[in-house]
């Protein structure tokens, strides 16, 4: 088994009313961002999948994305899977921690294999 990192983005489908994005966009001019438009708010999910190969990891991540993370009635999901050794970081602080631990966990994985 190898460990893959997956990133799922969930977006409202085109044509579905999106009051959250519209509200954020309306606030932009007041903050001096008159040059910004077409803003869309979505959600991102990061996780790791243990699988024999990348295709299997992608398939599992797809399944999770479409069964739970996105509601197919109103949302689409994009799923990306990479060979990785650490959980993708979610904050600058977290990123540092993650990059520090990459080497260690690669080493651990190599030993496990």
């Amino acid at each position: 088994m190898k460990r893959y990192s997956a990133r799922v983005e969930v977006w409202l489908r085109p044509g579905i009313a999106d009051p959250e994005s519209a509200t954020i966009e309306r606030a932009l001019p007041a903050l001096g961002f008159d040059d910004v438009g077409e803003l869309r708010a979505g959600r991102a999910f990061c996780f790791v999948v243990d699988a024999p190969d990348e295709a299997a990891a992608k398939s599992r991540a797809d399944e999770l994305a479409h069964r739970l993370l996105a509601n197919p009635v109103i949302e689409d999901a994009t799923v990306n899977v990479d060979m990785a050794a650490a959980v993708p970081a979610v904050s600058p602080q977290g990123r540092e921690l993650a990059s520090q631990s990459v080497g260690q966990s690669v080493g651990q994985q190599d030993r496990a294999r």
Partner: protein
Amino acid sequence: MTARIGVVVFPGTNCEHDTALAIERAGGSAELRWHADAHVGDVDAVVLPGGFAHGDYLRAGAIARFSPVMGAVSRFAAEGGTVIGICNGFQVLTEAGLLPGALMKNRGLRFVCKPVAVKVTSSRAALCAQVPVGTELTMPVNHFMGAYVCDDETLGALTDRGQVVLRYVENPNGSLDDIAGVSNEQGNVVGLMPHPERASDPLLGSTDGLVLLRSLVAAVGDGALGVADVTGPAAAIS
């Protein structure tokens, strides 16, 4: 026979006692059911009450759908059993695929908490079987994700088959086609955003919710499952 109605409690559900009390006021007998139990027991109907099941994390109802009890609720519904989802319960039923469509954030991103008038638009389901179409009822809504959406094809089918059971008189949340409540194709699963249990005592400002709950209790009380036959015993009880 008194209708036995199971009221499902998820972690974060908060309307179960109000709902149970209102069901008893409407002449039924209410029994709480814990979400982690993979059965609903010997009941004539199941109600998923309002609240914030599993904290509404991810999306309202998204996690509740995977609670062990939901397999039992799905089987109960598949066998024709009457299932009612109120507010968060409605969201759970759409997430579980027991009802079409989805509930999204309200228009204007406003949390709406006020009494609203709704019209009964179909008598197909047990909840409305005894209530003449066109009856106007006032009940509180209390939600952030109450805007009903579905695709055009689904909306056409809902309308043609009489699956829209309640419509807002004045749309409070941007719900598609003023939809406040829908049923499944068979009519035995119904979800609604207004809270009938919060309109079940004069002290609460309205007893209109009892009209729906009495209809439910009467329709399922004689052991009949599923869609009430309005010409049958259910109609005679009132």
